[in-house]
């Protein structure tokens, strides 16, 4: 395979990388222990699974607070503003262009780390899936305190567990696709490498007319 790598740009700061890998470890551990609590298998034992799950949940809450704070003070939240500009192009690229050896329609840059599809995906995870899991996880754990909160609405533990489990399956499906998508760079490992070192190697500029 020819190395068609070009210049490298520093895309992911130390904190972003820490956050990314900590979060991935937490999601995987939460899904793994969550599925055991769900009754899918017995590996750690129910009690240990619950303990690990709760520890990870609280840790994630703290991490998420740091992430939101970081987003706010660095202004990096702008990277997640959804856009429809070139969204179709990106979707078409992954559906068709990628098989034809065409270049990615939205090259990465310091100002735009994520393509429109990524922006939409990551934003909905940060704004929908994570808060949903946190809220239902919180309700699930403090189920006994509902009466003390004068919470007697139609929601029951059954429904909370349902939503929480559905959210987990959402993460699982995301994880599969997300891991695969890291291999779609100009080399199989270049995106993975970027998330480790911070430096994203851009593909060599395609020659005009190709």
């Amino acid at each position: 395979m020819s190395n068609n790598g070009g210049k490298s740009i520093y895309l992911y700061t130390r904190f972003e990388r820490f956050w990314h890998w900590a979060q991935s470890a937490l999601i995987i551990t939460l899904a793994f222990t969550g599925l055991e609590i769900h009754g899918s298998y017995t590996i750690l034992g129910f009690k240990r699974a619950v303990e690990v799950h709760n520890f990870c949940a609280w840790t994630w809450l703290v991490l998420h607070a740091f992430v939101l704070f970081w987003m706010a003070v660095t202004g990096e939240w702008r990277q997640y503003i959804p856009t429809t500009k070139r969204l179709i192009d990106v979707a078409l690229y992954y559906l068709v262009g990628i098989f034809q050896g065409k270049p990615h329609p939205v090259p990465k840059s310091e100002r735009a780390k994520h393509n429109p599809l990524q922006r939409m995906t990551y934003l909905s995870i940060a704004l929908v899936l994570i808060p949903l899991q946190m809220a239902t996880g919180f309700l699930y754990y403090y189920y006994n305190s509902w009466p003390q909160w004068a919470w007697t609405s139609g929601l029951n533990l059954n429904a909370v567990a349902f939503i929480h489990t559905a959210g987990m399956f959402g993460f699982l499906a995301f994880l599969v696709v997300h891991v695969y998508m890291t291999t779609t760079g100009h080399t199989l490992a270049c995106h993975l490498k970027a998330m480790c070192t911070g430096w994203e190697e851009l593909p060599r500029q395609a020659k005009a007319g190709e």
Partner: protein
Amino acid sequence: MLASKALTRAIFLTAGLGALLLASLALASAPGSAAQTSRPAPHWVTADHGKFEALKQEFKSGPEVTKACLSCHNEAGAQVMKTIHWTWMSPDAPPEAKLGKGGLVVNNFCIAMPSNEPRCTSCHAGYGWKDKSFDFSKQENIDCLVCHEQTGTYKKFPAGAGHPAAEPKKMGNETFLPPDWNKVAQSVGRPTRDNCGTCHFYGGGGDMVKHGDLDSSMHKPGRELDVHMDVKGANFNCTRCHTTVAHKVSGRAYKTPAAAQRISLLKDDQISRITCESCHSDKPHAASSKANDHTDKVACQTCHIPAFARALPTKMRWDWSTAGQRDAEGKPLKKKGPLGPLAYDGMKGDFTWAKDVQPQYQWFNGSMTNVMAYTKIDPSQPVTLAQAEGSPSDPNARIYPFKLHTGRQPYDKVNNTLVVPKLFGPPGSGAYWGDYDWNKAIGAGMAYVNLPYSGQYDWLESKYYFQISHMVAPKEKAVSCQECHTQQSRLNGIGGVYMPGRDFNRPLNYIGWGAAAAALLGVFLHGLGRAVARRKNGNQDQQG
């Protein structure tokens, strides 16, 4: 560079952990526990009964001793007469319901008490309840000694209507001697496990028969058998939990829950200690333990009594329909069972015994519903003679452990009622153990209680539930989380709660795993496509 990276990570992790710790500290509430339980209860009597002249006189019978007791304890008689130990009737049911052993309650052991008094009332705290003529208003008929004597030599004769033997008398292989009245009378003190155990460890006509969590192994239990009564540990007497005021022993009886409310001594030091919460509070575990969240739905006993009959076997089934076989000498046939006790007795039928039995679980608010001798029943279904009351929506109900005792017993197949057979009595009295004729025995029993009997009987299946509260295991032997939070759950029969690990939504599982599988298949095909395309385009690349 690398070191600073590691440092940053360490700082973030520490910050994360610190915040976590603060959060859990904030969540912590005061833990409730009973730390002082290993101390023996102080002994603070102010009288030596051996020095009372009244107890030095010559006694010939129990009632004479009782009169001597009452000569000082002049309120005791009236107090005892109000209790279920005297009346054998539910204090919370109208008299006409006849709810009680002394009334028309039916079980699936010896079935019913009336017409069998002299045998059954050997466990009555009284003297002389041999038939309906017993005078419940005569204070000297109270038996003070059975609950209070401390020599261990006082024994009521098993078929003596509550009296000890007046002269040496044999019953089975045991010879019963008249008590040394002065000695036993002068020994009195507060009831011990042995006093209560005299009857409560031998319920249902013998050791190991009835409760499953109360038998002779509880006279001197070790820590493994009961953490509270452990003779080498806290060594609790029954009354340590069964708080007794003016002879009224706290505890559950028929419609009467053990306690009106579950509060701890921290809130009110005058409450009865009958519930676990009295001493342990409703948050008995470490402050952040999830187990504390269970106490509103799960009784302490459910996790802390993993099995009953852990030292000795207990009777699980009694089939009266096979009774009547005799041996070569014409005596009732007896066959030993594999666990020791009889598997067959010609007087009583077939028995099943079991040891180390995992309880059944039910919602229970402290009250039982009993089928009475007058209740219309459906004989095509097993009849539940004692059913726990309570439902998931009942705030006083918890999931409790029970011993289920099944039986096969006679019923009136025309009137569709259970029957009260007369079992105990000499030949010619109609008693089953005298004449071995069920029709006569049922006729005699039903006539005695003034209930109709058609003259035709058959056999039905019955169930009787006993709440399990004793034999509390050491905490390391408590039921583990995953014995219930699994699809093979101990609580599989329990509805009304969502239990993670036991309960799940099947369609969601299909959709969720389906989505994950579809994603996996999708990326696999996509990757395959890319590999194929890359191979094709590869040549092009090199040319370019």
